[in-house]
């Protein structure tokens, strides 16, 4: 009876002391904030912050090399959580969404393309098979890049689900024609074309492309639209989303997102913390 008790007792004591010694020798100070910040982050490891996943961002935030608002998909909610853990104020920038600067669903093909069915590969061949060399090729590289289910190919043309978009910028990088732009939600009016061709050339291949008629420039009271290189370009600093140019545009190239965003509950934009609009 006694020996087993001694054996186990002695061994337990010996190993206990050994472990204690080892824990002093191999002491590592861990900042518990890293784990707490990591738990507050969305955990999708999308890489939008530019760092190696959510753990990477947590480490950077605690070490001070990243701002508490760095997680774009997390948005305001996550920024506040992280700021609380770090004990600082969160200055949140306005939420942005991806806007597709093209409406050319019905643009035809210049040639029969027989290569790999991705936009990046097709763009290598004489700037893509579409008649408009600035517009959407339609093989869906953008939809494949989106990890938030916010981009879908409907009948061969991308549609942004603005409710789900977290402006991680993956679609911006994926599109070889650079057709996506991240624009604050409060800006409701956009030019959905990027063609620099003359109006006549555009008219021949696309019914909704910008023909540089300058009606928008003429009617704008805020000096926010200008036609440069055959394309209407917005100055978002000056634009108030009044929508006058939308009514004037003869081809429907300039679109207002007011109704769709109202319907989705995204507009008017509520900004709780910063008080800026």
């Amino acid at each position, binding site marked *: 009876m006694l020996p*087993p008790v001694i*054996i186990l007792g002695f*061994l337990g004591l010996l*190993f206990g002391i*050994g*472990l204690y010694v080892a824990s002093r020798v*191999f002491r590592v100070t861990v900042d518990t904030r890293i784990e707490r910040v990591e738990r507050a982050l969305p955990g999708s490891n999308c890489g939008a912050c530019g760092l190696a996943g959510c753990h990477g961002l947590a480490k950077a935030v605690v070490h001070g090399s990243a701002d508490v608002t760095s997680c774009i998909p997390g948005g305001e909610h996550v920024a506040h959580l992280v700021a609380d853990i770090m004990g600082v104020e969160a200055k949140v920038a306005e939420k942005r969404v991806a806007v597709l600067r093209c409406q050319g669903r019905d643009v035809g093909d210049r040639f029969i393309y027989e290569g790999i069915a991705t936009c990046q590969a097709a763009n290598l061949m004489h700037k893509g098979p579409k008649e408009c060399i600035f517009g959407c090729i339609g093989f869906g590289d953008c939809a494949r890049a989106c990890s938030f289910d916010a981009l879908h190919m409907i009948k061969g043309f991308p549609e942004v689900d603005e409710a789900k978009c977290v402006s991680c910028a993956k679609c911006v990088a994926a599109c070889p024609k650079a057709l996506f732009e991240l624009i604050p939600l409060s800006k409701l009016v956009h030019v959905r074309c990027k063609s620099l061709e003359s109006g006549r050339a555009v008219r021949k291949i696309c019914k909704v492309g910008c023909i540089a008629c300058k009606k928008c420039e003429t009617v704008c009271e805020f000096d926010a639209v200008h036609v440069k290189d055959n394309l209407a370009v917005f100055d978002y600093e000056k634009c108030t989303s009044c929508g006058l140019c939308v009514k004037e545009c003869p081809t429907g190239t300039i679109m207002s997102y007011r109704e769709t965003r109202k319907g989705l509950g995204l507009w008017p934009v509520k900004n709780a913390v910063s008080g800026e609009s």
Partner: protein
Amino acid sequence: MRSYILLFISIALVNNFILAKFLGLCPFIGVSKRRKQAVGMGLAVIFVMTMASAVSWVVFEFLLAPTEHNLFYMLMGAGRPASDFDFTFLTTIVFILVIATLVQMVEMFLMKVIPPLYESLGIYLPLITTNCAVLGVALLNVKDFGIMNSLSESFAKSVLQGFGGGVGFLIVIFLMSGIREKLEKYDIPPALRGAPLAFICAGLMALAFMGFAGMGQ
């Protein structure tokens, strides 16, 4: 000398812990997705198995086994046969104690010295503790070399068996990680992705390793 070489080959290849004895499958499937991780895990297991074999041998020979050099027999056994001092029923719990301590120390060492490996192994590092392969090798040593005439030979063979078991584990987990790294990129039916296909591959590897049967003793 020859018996040592044969012992090493036997435990590393012929009676490989994973592919012949089917022990240690949890870290095998869990950590074989990347080659670097697999190598790290394999090296950790070699260390734990060797140290565990050594320490558990000492504890077994001098505290648990009913032999002449049992400490209790030497202290209290005047007049009684050595077989009275048979505490081998404590083997399991004592071995677990030994192994748990060793693994804890390995964890602490890794966390301080190689943090990336520590983080990438994650939960699988403490799982070496409850890993049947490590307890298995300790118990196997007891079975094969527990009661022997030469103490030093018994010790040497036990440690070698532990080391060889670890090497065998490293070989197989590294091979598996090489296969799985490439498998990742293929079009695998969703139902088979990940562990299911890994098990099928492991089964095929086990078949291949059966080719070693008959080598040595």
